[in-house]
């Protein structure tokens, strides 16, 4: 089953490959950026951006369902929760 299938809806292979590689590189860089951003509030923003990149990656992997989840959870809900926790713990330090 190794031969690539072709359907009327198939994106040309070269285009798809380029797209996937580009987004994969972006995701890899994004992951590093999330980890290396040590300031919390800034990290939340980077995390949101990383979530969006993941969502795009999943779209290129033909997974619209997971894309939606990655957007709603990874790019919206999780950053909000982390932001709340960060702001709660920051207040004390003042």
């Amino acid at each position, binding site marked *: *089953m190794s031969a*690539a299938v072709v359907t009327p809806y198939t994106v040309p292979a070269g285009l798809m490959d380029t797209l996937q590689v580009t987004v994969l590189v972006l995701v890899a860089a994004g992951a590093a950026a999330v980890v290396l951003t040590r300031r919390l509030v800034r990290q939340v923003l980077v995390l949101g951006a990383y979530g969006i990149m993941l969502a795009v990656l999943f779209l290129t992997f033909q997974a619209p369902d997971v894309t939606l989840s990655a957007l*709603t959870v990874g790019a919206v*809900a999780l950053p909000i*929760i982390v932001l709340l926790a960060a*702001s709660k713990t920051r207040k004390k330090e003042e």
Partner: protein
Amino acid sequence: MRPALRRWVFLAGAAGLVAFYLWGLSGLPGFGNYPGPYGPAILRIAVAQTHATGVVSAVNFEYRGFDTVGEEFILFTAAAGTAIVLRMLRGERERPPADEARDRDVPPTSGAVRTVALMFTGPVVVAGWWLASHAQANPSGGFQGGVVLATAFILIYLAGEFLTFRRLSPTAIADAVEAAGAGGFAAIGLAAVCLGLPYLDNFLPLGQIPGAVSSSGTIALISFFVGLEVAAAFILIVSELLEQTLLIRHGGG
């Protein structure tokens, strides 16, 4: 361990583990060559068997529905756990949020933000509802819909109406909705058992047209309950955290 030493120990270990992983990758079919047979088998039978055109939903709520029961209860447990962990401690008291206090030191939410946020609330609720009720057709489902529904409540908070947010989502009601969502899912499974069928059997009529809102039997119903559960769980978690941030003050502070 001292941080510098730890970093080197970790890097050595990680290098070894990654090398081991790469060594093993030779046995994995290359990217894009998924060999099956699970996926193709599902794709072959799903639409005819469940009348759901969204095969992922069919897998989530039907073929592997039992996983989803566990998953919903993970979320349920996490919401309950958040509540248990963040209970008010001795020496803590609630005070009015800064923007409601008499000596307010934050500027009021700007009119623009307020208007935009409130304007979006309605469409977001509609979008969430639509997503939760179209699991059987489109890339959507109770999970995404639930999160979007919860977002609507967060928008109300963004509009500067935290007390409204709190009033609209009192913990007891959110708890009840959450329990109804998670419990409802488990109960649908039990209903099948009561009919003498295996747990989670799709015992409802599947409808005539695959993909229509009323098609696919229990899939649509389960997706709806999942939506309830997810929305309520997220609202609970966010409101617990918001309370921590806005209302609770330690001791004299």
